[in-house]
């Protein structure tokens, strides 16, 4: 009775064969184990590292309390800090409190400002001059943004009186402060919550009732703020978790507790505050991290499923090899009366033994391979390096895989030769139907993948995970059916030839036993390898494309505060190693016809389009580059304005009509070499017929050109102003100035919609001392007495509309076409945009409704509409040197983002880097299983091959010809199988590749991914596996021939 003894003795006799089987099962189980570890400890580690690398502001929770009386501030602050602290319990949070006072009037009554106190000011701002405020007692020490000091003309030591608080119930007592320092806000330091977003100035900040020029904050020490008794407009307590201690569970707990915290804050603040709110970006941050983790897990699962499918095919093949070796023994035992149950029991015992041995090998192997994998440079840089980590889940996965595979393998050895009768109709239908059925399922998965809109999800995507394995399996099963047909054709053709090799090799290849499974394994492995390589390349390319579009250029400097000529010079000096640099406008845009998602407002991007070819990144949608796409957006001719001489003193003269006493306030709009505009106001001057020196309230800058001049007329219109317009002439003498544009035609126009000004004209002429700009206009003094007059003289012609290129998303949203005009509002300035072209997406605005304009054209249009304050939001730099990047960061003007860094984040972030690594692992796995498959096809058939070679040798075939014959046969079998595999890989990549890529947000990438074929890598891959297979076939063939001495003929069956 065959029992354990028989199993063991047979195992000993067949130890070489069983060693191969155990190696195969152990390798497959180890693969599953590695994937289990990647899905478990590595995934968790990646999440933790991702949290640690997240901007603190993205994890912070902020409690807002609006409008608190001065006396209640300490108690309310305490309550808010307690609520935030309780919410973040367990994450060892850092709390930071900022309070902003209600707006107060400045001395002239037309402008307003506000006080602020904040914890950790040095960490939130860069001190530019003086020192940080301290102490208490009026005048209170204050620091202000540099832009505030510049626009208010303040120097260190100057005192400013902030008058009564605006609004009902405001305090009347003024606050006197003394300026002790100026600063520049740091990026990611919470300044986006400041009233003026850290800009230091707004020409028309509205508190909901009135809009007025607003300045601030005047940051004072906490004690000073409290002593001033100021009412708090907004109190903000921000709690930031300790990232090293924050876990997924604890952060999820914070998100879940946000609602309760808001209720607790409202309850504790009670009537002492008008509005309370607890807000955080943590939920979105967690969603993003979860989506990244899910995407990575999906890729690992794809690798796991493909590997498992190939391993199952290899196990089947190995099973048939074992069955062939044991056929005689089995038939004998059955003939001696061995029952099926006894055979099953023996097989089960053998399966358990083999799986136990495989498990012993696979568990440490998986742990070691996983550890080695996480120490690969990219993964180690992603913070994922781990030592060997044998976990319970690893053990369970390996045991399950080993038992399953050995059971599959051993079960194929149960049948006797008598069981293998002719194929039944049912079996034939099942075999023929399996391929089409798989194809239908794969088609459904592909359709689902193609039609679904990817969204962030922590639960994974079944279609994303199953589609690749279904597609590869279905296409392979169907594709390999062509191979025997081809071989039969080839054999039929070769049969009519004279020679032996071609004929016999194709015949043998066409009639190889169990060739279906072998072909599925070999072709499937080749397809998986081709798919893995192409998918990796497509994924990496897509991340690069996303980075291109996300940043828009090679380097982006997002300004924390509006830039002026000083910053422009600094940037210019810091980017000497770059190919191009341009100031950029990047801000929300209101479109009259836009009815899209309110959270996805259209975006305006304006750059110097003369440098678009060098600056802009991303696809244009056709063969044109960005310089061609943006050709025609820049106004022609370019205007440099009137060059102002260093130290030159402008003088103004003009006459008031009889009986009237008019004054004028000039605001010069100057343009520097980088086309950055700056508005510099001047002190009021009387129009009394005398030439007055113009006293500019800020520096004009060196080497700038005057491109605009605003004239605000005010004053006494006389007792009985005439009904008809009175001609007024204002002349500005600019000594040393030169008109840089030959033939430049200045023009002047009233800025008010209903204006007392009529017939305005401007002229520029060269004088002996420089240049003279004159504005002449008719003034309705009666009307003037009610409205004043506001005129703007510019060095360029009127701008009817701004030509733009729009994104496809905007076209989809508003139905715009080329040639259409769009009504838009930038800030509070209305503009007309003229659509000149459509691109898939505007650089730096991926997937958004966006317009791309020329910066000069936009500046002119805004200036023409009376918007004089600077609108530059950032600088874009093309091909910056590493020194440029460091230099720009050192300037501290704002956040510097480089395209290469974003590519790094997208491809090598802790939750992203396993994706390309897993796809590479798929390639390695497929190659390994391919070679295992080759071995299983060639190795175990030694007995059969030897017999055939012996017969042929006895007929007179030489050893050399026998080797050639075997090699030709293997080539005839493998080459078309490889070809099918390559074809399946290519088709699967084309069908699935673009749909398998996700953004770091778990959404569909923008731009749409396109398959990026790594041709050289694919060629190397295919060449390597062909070479390896041919070499293996040649070596095994030579061994078979060596073992095929004709003297053994007698014993050959």
């Amino acid at each position, binding site marked *: 009775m065959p029992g354990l003894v028989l199993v063991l003795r047979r195992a000993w006799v067949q130890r070489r064969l069983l060693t191969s089987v155990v190696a195969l099962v152990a390798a497959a189980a180890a693969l599953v184990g590695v994937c289990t570890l990647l899905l478990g400890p590595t995934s968790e580690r990646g999440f933790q590292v991702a949290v640690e690398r997240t901007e603190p502001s993205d994890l912070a929770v902020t409690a807002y309390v609006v409008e608190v009386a001065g006396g209640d501030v300490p108690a309310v602050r305490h309550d808010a800090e307690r609520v935030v602290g309780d919410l973040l319990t367990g994450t060892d949070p850092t709390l930071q409190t900022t309070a902003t006072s209600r707006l107060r009037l400045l001395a002239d009554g037309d402008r307003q400002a506000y006080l602020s106190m904040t914890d950790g000011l040095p960490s939130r701002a860069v001190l530019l001059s003086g020192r940080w405020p301290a102490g208490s007692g009026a005048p209170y020490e204050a620091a202000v943004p540099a832009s505030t000091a510049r626009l208010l003309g303040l120097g260190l030591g100057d005192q400013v009186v902030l008058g009564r608080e605006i609004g009902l119930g405001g305090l009347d007592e003024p606050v006197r402060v003394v300026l002790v320092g100026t600063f520049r806000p740091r990026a990611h330091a919470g300044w986006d919550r400041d009233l003026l977003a850290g800009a230091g100035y707004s020409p028309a900040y509205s508190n909901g009732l009135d809009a007025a020029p607003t300045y601030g904050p005047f940051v004072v020490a906490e004690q000073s703020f409290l002593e001033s008794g100021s009412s708090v407009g907004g109190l903000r307590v921000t709690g930031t978790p300790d990232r090293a201690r924050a876990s997924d569970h604890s952060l999820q707990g914070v998100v879940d507790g946000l609602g309760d915290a808001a209720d607790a804050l409202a309850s504790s603040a009670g009537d002492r505050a008008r509005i309370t709110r607890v807000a955080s970006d943590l939920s979105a941050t967690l969603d993003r991290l979860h989506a990244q983790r899910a995407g990575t897990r999906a890729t690992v699962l794809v690798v796991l499923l493909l590997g498992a499918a190939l391993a199952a095919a290899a196990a089947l093949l190995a099973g048939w090899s074992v069955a062939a070796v044991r056929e005689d023994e089995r038939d004998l035992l059955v003939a001696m009366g061995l029952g099926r149950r006894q055979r099953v029991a023996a097989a089960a015992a053998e399966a358990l033994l083999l799986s136990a041995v495989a498990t012993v090998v696979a568990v440490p192997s998986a742990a070691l391979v996983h550890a080695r994998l996480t120490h690969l440079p990219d993964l180690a840089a992603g913070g994922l390096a781990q030592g060997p980590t044998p976990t319970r889940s690893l053990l369970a996965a390996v045991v399950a895989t080993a038992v399953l595979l050995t059971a599959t393998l051993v079960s194929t050895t149960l049948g006797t030769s008598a069981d293998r009768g002719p194929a039944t109709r049912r079996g034939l239908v099942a075999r023929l139907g399996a391929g089409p059925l798989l194809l239908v399922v794969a088609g459904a998965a592909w359709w689902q993948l193609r039609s679904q809109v990817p969204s962030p999800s922590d639960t994974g995507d079944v279609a994303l995970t199953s589609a690749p394995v279904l597609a590869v399996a279905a296409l392979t099963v169907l594709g390999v059916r062509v191979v025997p047909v081809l071989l039969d054709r080839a054999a039929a053709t070769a049969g009519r*030839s004279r020679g032996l090799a071609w004929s*016999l090799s194709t015949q043998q290849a066409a009639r190889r036993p169990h060739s279906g499974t072998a072909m599925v394994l070999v072709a499937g492995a080749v397809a998986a390898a081709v798919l893995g390589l192409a998918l990796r390349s497509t994924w990496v390319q897509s991340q690069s494309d996303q980075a291109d579009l996300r940043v828009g250029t090679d380097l982006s400097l997002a300004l924390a505060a509006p830039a002026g000529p000083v910053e422009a010079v600094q940037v210019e000096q810091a980017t000497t190693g770059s190919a191009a640099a341009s100031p950029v406008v990047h801000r929300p845009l209101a479109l009259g016809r836009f009815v899209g998602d309110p959270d996805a407002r259209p975006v305006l991007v304006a750059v110097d389009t003369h440098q678009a070819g060098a600056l802009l990144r991303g696809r244009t949608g056709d063969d044109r580059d960005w310089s061609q796409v943006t050709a025609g957006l820049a106004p022609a001719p370019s205007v440099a304005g009137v060059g102002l001489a260093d130290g030159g003193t402008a003088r103004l003269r003009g006459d008031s009509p009889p009986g009237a006493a008019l004054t004028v306030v000039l605001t010069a709009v100057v343009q520097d070499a980088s086309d950055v505009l700056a508005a510099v106001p001047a002190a009021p001057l009387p129009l009394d017929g005398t030439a007055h020196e113009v006293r500019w309230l800020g520096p004009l800058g060196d080497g700038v050109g005057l491109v605009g001049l605003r004239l605000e007329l005010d004053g006494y219109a006389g007792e009985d102003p005439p009904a008809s317009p009175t001609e007024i002439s204002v002349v500005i003498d600019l000594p040393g100035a030169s008109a840089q544009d030959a033939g430049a035609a200045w023009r002047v126009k009233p800025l008010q919609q209903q204006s007392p000004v009529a017939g305005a004209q401007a002229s520029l002429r060269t004088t002996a001392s420089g240049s003279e700009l004159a504005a002449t206009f008719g003034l309705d003094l009666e009307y003037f007495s009610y409205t004043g007059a506001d005129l703007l003289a510019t060095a360029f012609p009127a701008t009817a509309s701004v030509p733009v290129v729009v994104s496809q998303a905007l076209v989809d949203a508003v139905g715009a076409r080329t040639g259409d005009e769009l009504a838009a509002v930038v800030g509070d300035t209305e503009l007309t945009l003229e659509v000149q072209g459509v691109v898939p997406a505007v650089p730096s605005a991926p997937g958004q409704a966006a317009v791309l304009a020329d910066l000069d054209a936009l500046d002119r249009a805004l200036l023409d509409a009376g918007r004089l304050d600077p609108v530059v939001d950032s600088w874009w730099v093309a091909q910056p040197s590493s020194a440029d990047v460091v230099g720009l960061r050192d300037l501290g003007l704002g956040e510097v983002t480089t395209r290469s860094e974003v590519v790094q984040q997208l491809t090598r972030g802790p939750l992203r880097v396993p994706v390309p690594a897993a796809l590479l692992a798929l390639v390695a796995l497929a190659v390994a299983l391919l070679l295992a498959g080759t071995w299983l096809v060639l190795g175990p058939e030694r007995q059969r091959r030897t017999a055939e070679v012996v*017969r042929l040798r006895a007929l*007179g075939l030489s050893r050399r010809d026998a080797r050639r014959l075997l090699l030709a046969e293997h080539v005839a079998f493998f080459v078309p199988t490889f070809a099918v595999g390559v074809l399946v890989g290519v088709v699967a990549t084309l069908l699935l590749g673009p749909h398998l890529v996700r953004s770091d947000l778990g959404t569909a990438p923008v731009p749409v991914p396109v398959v990026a074929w790594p041709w050289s890598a694919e060629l190397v891959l295919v060449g390597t596996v062909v070479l390896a297979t041919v070499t293996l076939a040649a070596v095994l063939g030579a061994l078979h021939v060596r073992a095929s001495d004709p003297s053994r003929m*007698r014993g050959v069956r």
Partner: protein
Amino acid sequence: MNEPVPPMVEVRGLTRTYGAGSTAVTALRDVTFDIAPGELVAVVGRSGSGKTTLLNLLGGLDRPDSGTVRVDGTAVSTLDDSGLSALRRDTVAYVFQTFGLIPALTAAENVGLPLRMRRTPVAERERRVELLLDLVGLRDHARQRPDQLSGGQQQRVAIARALAGSPRLLLADEPTGQLDTETGLAVMSLLRAVVESEGVTAVVATHDQVLMALADRVLAISDGRVDG
């Protein structure tokens, strides 16, 4: 007076020992004999008497420890591998007890194998295959594979294949060993017939009394020595 016809097979002092030391087994001891062209010789003896060893040495499948074998004037024992291959391809053919057919090939393709090795023109090959299958009575089974043929039919295909290359010497090792009596008789008759029709010399190792009766001469081997 006619010149004496040189023997087709000339064996002198042939000795072959397997193994060494105490386990050494001498299969043939100083065997000497000649076989004339066109002769059908039956080699008889008990199992293990050295019949197969003798046939292997005659066909160059094995090398003697001492002595010489000449086939059609060629010293077989001195040939290298390519020479032996050429000998088997052009001069000597085998028929084995286990038939030795290639399973993947049809009967006609199996018969045509020696002709393919010689790169015989296709038309000539097909004509010869057809002729030989006709000779062995399997013309209607030309497209069947070995596993679709009976044992006797397979052996007849093997005989046809052995004759395909027009060998000078046909070596058959127990050709009826796996056949029933009736089929064995038919195969033996066929062998006798084709030897006569093709004019080949045949050496057949057998236990079959019928074949012994059909043979021109019987070489009896006992303990590695030849009698008769």
